[in-house]
């Protein structure tokens, strides 16, 4: 008989690929001043629109080429990763805490708490999210803080909905009733019995939300509502690249690919984690 506690399974490729890309990017973001080959803000009109290193006319030191103001694309992407990660972590965590708490309360307690919270969520979700974000940033003023607040304020509903549904399912399980019979209080049961079973979903959603936060930040900086215009944000670089697409495709393509891989990795990473740590699916 094999040991039932052996939980090893085939290496989870998507977890490792996604995790690998995110770690690489995170390391680059943290070490940006040390590893970026150039100053991301330094303009040099002598070096404008240099192509990537494998093409004719590239200059050593400018690996992915330069934009129309001669700024090094790779350095800007690396520094842009900083902003992307700060927004992703802060905004997703804030949305997660607020949404999950309300969702857990609504799902477990039901009744009035559920009715009130669910109605608020319904109303909230009726706003078109991107317009809502633009409106919020317009009211709060541009800047990193506003972007983070806007994303959290908009996206907590996603957590609330999912966590509420999961908490409702778990609350009807016999083990919750059993804890009730044993004499545990409602709060204790919610935190000790229900929350751990909802946690895998929260983690998966948190990771997904980080990807969404990266996109929203890119959208806001694309329309120039994030932080100052020449700060290296991915959205800003994409906006810049769009203007010179015919002369310098790389300014548009590299940030797009980076953005795409990052968002994909966040969602795959979350799903991979869920599969790995969900005791029921395992």
């Amino acid at each position: 008989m094999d040991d039932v506690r052996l939980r090893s399974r085939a290496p989870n490729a998507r977890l490792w690929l996604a995790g690998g890309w995110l770690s690489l990017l995170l390391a680059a973001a943290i070490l940006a001043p040390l590893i970026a080959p150039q100053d991301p803000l330094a303009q040099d009109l002598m070096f404008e629109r240099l192509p990537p290193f494998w093409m004719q006319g590239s200059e050593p030191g400018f690996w992915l080429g330069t934009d129309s103001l001669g700024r090094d694309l790779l350095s800007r992407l690396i520094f842009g990763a900083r902003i992307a990660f700060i927004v992703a972590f802060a905004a997703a965590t804030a949305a997660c805490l607020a949404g999950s708490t309300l969702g857990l309360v609504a799902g477990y307690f039901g009744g009035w708490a559920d009715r009130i919270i669910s109605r608020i969520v319904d109303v909230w979700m009726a706003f078109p999210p991107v317009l809502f974000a633009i409106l919020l940033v317009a009211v709060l003023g541009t800047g990193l803080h506003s972007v983070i607040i806007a994303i959290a304020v908009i996206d907590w509903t996603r957590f609330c909905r999912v966590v509420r549904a999961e908490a409702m399912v778990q609350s009807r399980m016999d083990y919750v009733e059993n804890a009730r019979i044993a004499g545990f209080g409602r709060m204790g049961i919610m935190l000790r019995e229900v929350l751990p079973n909802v946690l895998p979903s929260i983690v998966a959603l948190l990771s997904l939300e980080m990807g969404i936060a990266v996109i929203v930040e890119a959208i806001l900086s694309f329309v120039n509502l994030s932080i100052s215009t020449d700060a290296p944000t991915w959205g800003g670089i994409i906006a810049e690249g769009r203007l010179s697409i015919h002369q310098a495709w790389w300014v548009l393509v590299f940030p797009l690919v980076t953005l795409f891989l990052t968002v994909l990795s966040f969602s795959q990473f979350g799903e991979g984690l869920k599969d790995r740590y969900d005791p029921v699916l395992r």
Partner: protein
Amino acid sequence: MSAAPCLEISNLSATLPSGMRVLRSVSLKIAPGEVHALVGESGAGKSMIGKAVLGVLPTSVRIVEGDMLLEGTRLGALSPKARRALIGARTALIPQDPLTALNPSRRIGPQITDRLIRILGWSASKAESRIRRLLDEVQIREPGRVVGCYPHELSGGMRQRVLIAAAFAAEPRLIVADEPTTALDVTVQKQILRLIADLQREHGTAILFVTHDLGVVAKISQKVSVLYAGMVVEEADTTALFAAPQHPYTRALMAATPRYTDPYASLLPVDAAVLAGLAGEVAEADRAWRPVHA
């Protein structure tokens, strides 16, 4: 027995929001250390009585009349908190479905010692040694390994053993066993039943045994209440009931039990005349019934 009954239910009625009664003036008495079976078809309100005793009725069901006395203490007279504390200390549940009755994300050990430590104030080491002994009593071979397992790592039968151990752990005076063998394999059913009977005898625990299986009733209980539509139609000692069932519905239920001695006999449904009689009884009970507070 001179002592107060372990559980006494008198005239218990409960309604749905529509006003329909799901329990119709149910009365029953369980002496300390006695196994009292509740039989009836699905929807007869068997589990509802168990839930009412344990204080976990669905929120839509409301008790409108009657009393429940647990070892002489009137449950309805206690504050919700005191009631929870009393029920938590004196009773336990052996649930129907061992697959959902254990928290999937917690290890077995902490999950069942939690109650002893946090509710009853035992020391961790006392609770742990108690659980190991109980797991041993329910014939789990490696209690040391099992306490470190997650529920999904155990079979259904194993989980039910764990739940039985957990139910007996705090030496409750009353255990509600809610169809404890229904979700199990037929071969495992018999072992689990014998296990519950053995533990019950050793620990002297009274059991309210909810089942739809008359074969199980005959094996385990001293007394039986037959339920139909939330109404006790017959209550008797088990031996007397099987020797001479009084109510036509009880007789019909017995006739409907398939017998392995004659596997090709066709199954008998409950006779239409019996059902009509029951409907009449239910209607009459409802006519005579006036809720104390409307």
